[in-house]
């Protein structure tokens, strides 16, 4: 199977809960063929070597290889659009500046608020809008 022809998303986060939530949101977009997951930067890079991804959702704080190191590697070898999904990269933070410099295509706070459907909805929408925007470009 030639995965290159498909539209794929890679979700990189050490928390399975977060991956589950992100996957749910991405699924609602109905525009991707394959949604892959990775627990840390190292596993993400391995997956990137094997398949092509259009969008990467990348957490920053992860064991083994964190998001900043992973982003640096990804930018050297891959064309995927990278969205940093982390509370560490709030606007104005040092992380925010660093990941922008390294070439992140978007930064967004962690989605969530499972307790509050409207909040969850809103946070989900923000991410969907960002993905839509990047895919169009």
């Amino acid at each position, binding site marked *: 199977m030639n995965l290159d022809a498909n539209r794929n998303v890679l979700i990189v986060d050490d*928390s399975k*809960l977060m991956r*589950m939530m992100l996957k749910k949101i991405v699924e609602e977009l109905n525009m991707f063929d394959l949604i892959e997951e990775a627990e840390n930067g190292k596993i993400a890079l391995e997956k990137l070597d094997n398949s092509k991804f259009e969008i990467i959702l990348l957490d920053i*704080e992860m064991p083994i290889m964190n998001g900043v190191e992973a982003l640096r590697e990804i930018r050297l070898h891959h064309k995927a659009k990278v969205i940093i999904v982390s509370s*560490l990269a709030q606007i104005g933070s040092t992380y925010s500046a660093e990941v922008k410099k390294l070439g992140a295509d978007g930064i967004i706070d*962690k989605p969530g608020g499972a307790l509050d459907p409207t909040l969850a909805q809103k946070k989900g929408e923000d991410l969907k809008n960002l993905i839509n925007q990047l895919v169009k470009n």
Partner: protein
Amino acid sequence: MNDEFLDEIWAQFESEALEHCKNSEDLLLDSVNKDLSKAEIDSIFRSFHSLKGLTGSIGLSETVTLTHLAEDLISESRKGKIILDDNLRTALLNFTDVLKAILQKSIKERKEVITKNFGSCKSVLEEILQGKPSKIKQKNRNETFDDSLVSEPLSNLDSLEEERFTQVSSASLDDLFQKSGTLISRANALKRAFEQVNTMAENDYANVILEKLVNDIQIVNGRITDLRLISVNDLVRRLKRAAIDTSKSLKKKIQFNVKGDNERADRSIIRALADPLMHMIRNSIDHGIEEDKDRPKKGIGKINLSFQKEGDNLVIKLSDDGRGLDKDKILKKAIEKKFISKSNPKELEERDIYSLIFKPGFSTAENVSSTSGRGVGMDVVEKNIAMLGGKIEIFSEKNKGTNISVLIPGAVSTEECIILKDLPTFYAVPSRSIQWVKNKSDLETDIVTGTEHIRYNKSQIPIQDLSKLLSLPTNNSKGFVEKIILLSLSDKAIAINYFGDFVYDEIVFDQPDKLISNLPFVSGTTVDDDRNIIFRLNVERLFDYDNQAA
């Protein structure tokens, strides 16, 4: 979001959040004895950061302010701006306790439930972060803190009991499924075989299948037993907390070393071990380890705890390098209390002398302190361990320390019981303590000082009314035949009466719930196939009670 997805989300949340609590708690506890490496501090940071993310994602908006503070504190510590000292460690450990309580309740209710310690925990974290507490304030805070610490380890034990999820290796699950599949197909083959039995040869064939089926059932049973095994790791964490809290409240410096905390044991065993071990450790610190000033050469007090599997048995060793047990004092006290007579102390072997401290009533006001007192003595420790079919032994050397070793048989054994089904609440009496059961009409009885006695081994034994002992309404009016159950323990015998019938069964008992543990003569519970609760009659207690009455 649909319900099924929400269920998954909450389950995943619970498992991840608790894992991060455990990880940070473990490392914080380690930091008592050693400086943490950079990687270890990073790991605490990652756990706190994840906890912030998790509580935020699930929408616990109050709680996230707390997790945020903890993350900030450890982040400052990572940068070297705040030192991870006793003060900060206590505050952060308290934070994990408060957080666990909030998580537990919130997960249950599926909404944010704030516990009463939330406010005080938060303000302590805020103060440390702002670095402003004055010396006097700091002292006060430690005092209020200690109060919460004394109660917290107990609630931690609840969480040990209420743990709803357990991690099971997928290999053993696969194996179990496969084996249970074999069981079904064998049972079907057996059914077919019996339907067609016409000849001797076919009968033999049916027997072969039957044998295989029994064999398979044994294998499956073994695998299921294996699934009940959990690591002693959680227990160890509680014990470390207890040790640290005790050493703090007694102002004795100690080093608490644990070996073999990855050993596994049946969950019911681990549950039952928590209280005795907690008590023994508190005892070691309280009575074993000397005041700091009295150990100029020995230095910091050392307490070692180890878990080791020996065959099917779990061996637990607890040692301290304290003052040791005072043989003469024990003997003197035992003679005072008439546990032994004056003439025989010389015949006692050393270990028999030490084991005197397990006698009920041995530990008296003299050694009851707020720390190790708690209304339980070493006799309770021995009893709890005996309930598991285990043994406890003590060796001690003056000024060198005390070693306690506990051996717990590995398999949860079933207990053969008779169940008294005509009492308002079912009671099970372990068969091994029953000498015989007879109809009273077949026995010769005598009236001695107004009470009916039966004759047994040349002595007269009073008949005790079981319903009265158990505070149950009497059931003698229902036309049942009165039976006498003769119970014996070592050389003593007790006769109780019972109106009704009984059945035999093999039972695996659970520890009694908190509510039930107030019932004096219940030492275990189980539920039968018809969902009736069955209490295990605490025969051992019955004999103690009889002693006291005599």
